[in-house]
């Protein structure tokens, strides 16, 4: 497990938040070389954006879509393939030279397609994509309804005997159209969609979203709001790990009563202190929705000491210290109604979360939310390759993949 890190409140600023508009040639050049790893790729009606990791942070680049297309990044960076399919299904831009052009989010069930294009056309065909499972392998089809308490996804395993030789996932079943719903709304109104992208990491997503709005408007939030966000983020981090421990134990048929009781104690404490067991809608652009309840500091401190001894566990010690040392003052500073563009980051329990938005007179003109699911789902294929079919439930439990985060 990674070391505990408190959710960051500010986007990586300086050069990171300055978007660099590239010509088509420069983008194509970058696509050929692409030495910096790709973090995310998304679009809007006229532009595609790529977030690249740099040694000192990230770099955001973009290029205009010409003739309905842009040079694909997937030949150099396989991780780009799912993003390119998503961009095609939502905005209709074709990644020229892409390694994979099969349907992704668009299963042919929407009233018009692509739904976020300037001029959407009739629905796409309702055919599932061709799965590239070799003909001499037996196929196991799982989902989208998989039983248990699992997110909706279709998995196709190519097996020989009990050994998994190929695995393909088809997602999009939980596509709710959140990006379209957020457009034209104020950051405050759209925050509830960011909070519901992935319920288990609602604080981290809300924090990244709020940071993007605050970066776009060049606003600072009160120190007490910042500290409360860190407390909530820290609680979510611990809860996520407790739930992971429970899930892994259950996959091995050895339920852990300790992990379950500790998680319950923390959720009950979160409910008393912040008014919600998952702390959903508690982090909002401009600060936090409400101050910690009277007695909340003691409640959280008590619950943390029940979960682990602060003397031995540095994560819990740090979080307890943060709760005890909350600065005084306001917890919310209203954001101005203005235009701008900003990138927000949070270290969520499952990995880095990036949100980007462009505001036009206080309304969201264009937005993207990048969940760590985009890099975690491909791990399933890697972990299962050469493994046994029986390993699947255990591998799924350890990865704790979310469909809704990448389905949008």
């Amino acid at each position, binding site marked *: 497990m990674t070391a505990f890190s408190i959710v960051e409140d500010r986007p990586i600023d300086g050069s990171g938040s300055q978007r660099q508009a590239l010509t088509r040639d420069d983008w194509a050049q970058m696509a050929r070389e692409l030495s910096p790893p790709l973090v995310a790729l998304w679009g809007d009606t006229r532009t595609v954006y790529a977030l690249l990791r740099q040694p000192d942070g990230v770099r955001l680049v973009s290029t205009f879509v010409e003739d309905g297309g842009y040079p694909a990044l997937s030949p150099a960076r396989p991780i780009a393939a799912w993003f390119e399919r998503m961009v095609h299904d939502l905005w209709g831009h074709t990644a020229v030279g892409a390694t994979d052009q099969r349907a992704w*989010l668009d*299963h042919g*069930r*929407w*009233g*018009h397609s692509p*739904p976020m294009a300037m001029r959407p056309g009739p629905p796409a065909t309702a055919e599932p994509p061709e799965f590239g499972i070799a003909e001499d392998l037996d196929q196991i089809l799982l989902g*989208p*309804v*998989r*039983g*248990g*308490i*699992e*997110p*909706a996804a279709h998995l196709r395993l190519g097996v020989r005997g009990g050994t998994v030789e190929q695995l393909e996932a088809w997602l*999009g*079943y*939980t*596509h*709710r*159209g*959140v990006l*379209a*719903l957020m457009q034209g709304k104020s950051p405050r109104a759209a925050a*509830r*969609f960011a909070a*519901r*992208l*992935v*319920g*288990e990491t*609602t604080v981290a997503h809300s924090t990244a979203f709020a940071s993007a709005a605050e970066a776009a408007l060049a606003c600072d939030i009160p120190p007490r709001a910042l500290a409360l966000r860190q407390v909530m983020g820290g609680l979510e981090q611990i809860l996520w790990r407790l*739930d992971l421990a*429970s*899930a892994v134990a259950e996959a091995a048929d050895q*339920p852990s*009563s300790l992990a*379950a*009781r500790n*998680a*319950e104690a923390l*959720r009950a404490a979160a*409910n008393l202190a912040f008014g919600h*067991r*998952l702390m*959903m809608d508690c982090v909002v652009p401009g600060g936090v929705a409400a101050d910690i309840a009277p007695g909340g500091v003691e409640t959280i401190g008590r619950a943390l000491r029940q979960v682990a001894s602060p003397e031995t566990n540095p994560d819990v010690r740090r979080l307890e210290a943060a709760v005890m040392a909350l600065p005084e003052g306001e917890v919310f500073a209203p954001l101005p109604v203005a235009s701008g563009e900003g990138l927000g980051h949070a270290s969520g329990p499952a990995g880095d979360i990036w949100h980007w938005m462009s505001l036009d007179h206080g309304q969201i003109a264009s937005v993207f939310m990048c969940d760590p699911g985009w890099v975690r789902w491909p791990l399933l294929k890697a972990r299962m390759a050469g493994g046994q079919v029986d390993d699947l439930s255990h591998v799924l439990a350890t990865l704790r993949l*979310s*469909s*809704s985060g990448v389905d949008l």
Partner: protein
Amino acid sequence: MTPWRTLARTVLARPAAAPVPPVDRETASSLAGRLEAGAQTPLGRSLAVLHIDAGSCGGCEVELRSLRRAVYDLERFGVCFVASPRHADVLLATGPVTRNLVEALELAHAAMPDPKLVVALGDCAVDGGVFKGSYAIAGGVGTTLPVDLLISGCPPAPERILAGLRALLEANARSRPGISSR
């Protein structure tokens, strides 16, 4: 610590499972009426539940998992989760019912044996919740299937889900003569 103290602590320790309030009589009665009219096969005092993610953010699933674990210990009431609609008495759906999942939801329901009880769990499943108006959703389980029980909340707390499922159990037991209700 002395062995006697350990022994005393073990004997006196309370179980992890939380105490539960009585079943909501009103919900149980209204469900009993519906079941008596509609149930063809009595189920007894157990329910096999098939969970379907119809576009959930995962929040409802967090609480469903809590419900199964030590503190709420759902199985002590005879409620278990199954993997196939063929074995399910209850279809429990979360999420606003995305258009991409409508067909799977219908197929699962069609594959269930009677009485095919349907529970819509969470505000999204009740009526689409915050996602109302999206091109990508049908707008609640009721748009696709006949719903027997709505459990609102975003997400509903485990106690609330438990109250709903226990009312379903109670109603089911009452609809079957010869099995007394607690």
